[in-house]
């Protein structure tokens, strides 16, 4: 076993565990924004680590692997941002521990008065 294979195996294990943690976060969190937080971060790093691990195991594929990694790192935050804004505009349930802290409300009130 070469050093690349050992590194690739470690990355595979770490990445799949982070993918699992992301799904666990989606399952456990109380409202849609916290689910987005956990899901986006953990599944992005998990997918990146897994795919990079495959790239280290098969070094001839590394260029396309890098393209896939860059695409995932670019697209996941954008889709989570679009979903978060849509759900806030639909007045989805928001979980607050103590008092309500919501600075984005002012924008929506302005939008409503303009209409």
């Amino acid at each position, binding site marked *: 076993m070469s050093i690349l294979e050992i590194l690739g195996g470690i990355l595979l294990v770490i990445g799949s565990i982070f*993918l699992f943690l*992301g*799904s*666990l976060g989606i399952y456990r969190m109380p409202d849609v924004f916290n689910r987005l937080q956990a899901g986006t971060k953990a599944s992005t790093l998990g997918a990146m680590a897994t795919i990079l691990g495959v790239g280290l195991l098969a070094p001839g594929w590394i260029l396309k692997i890098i393209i896939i990694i860059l695409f*995932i790192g670019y*697209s996941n935050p954008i*889709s989570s941002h*679009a979903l978060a804004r849509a759900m806030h505009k639909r007045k989805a349930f928001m979980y607050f521990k103590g008092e309500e802290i919501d600075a984005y409300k002012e924008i929506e009130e302005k939008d409503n008065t303009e209409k």
Partner: protein
Amino acid sequence: MNYIIYFSLTVMILALILSAIRFYKGPSAGDRTLALDTMTTIGVSGIVLLSYMYNRYIYLDVALVYGVLGFIGVIVIARYLEKAL
């Protein structure tokens, strides 16, 4: 080496099951879309892993196109939910 790949695939399938539960239960459309997005990401890494397991370079293209389509789908659903489409 094979055992590591089997372990990773097993953990990914557990993650898929957890997201599928959220997809089934999810109180709002946003939760379901989020679960779908996560399942797409897990699916992309699973396809890349399978392409290494079967030693087929061409499967990487499948993973890339699947990722692109999933991203576009989530954006379209989000814009629709925002009543902006």
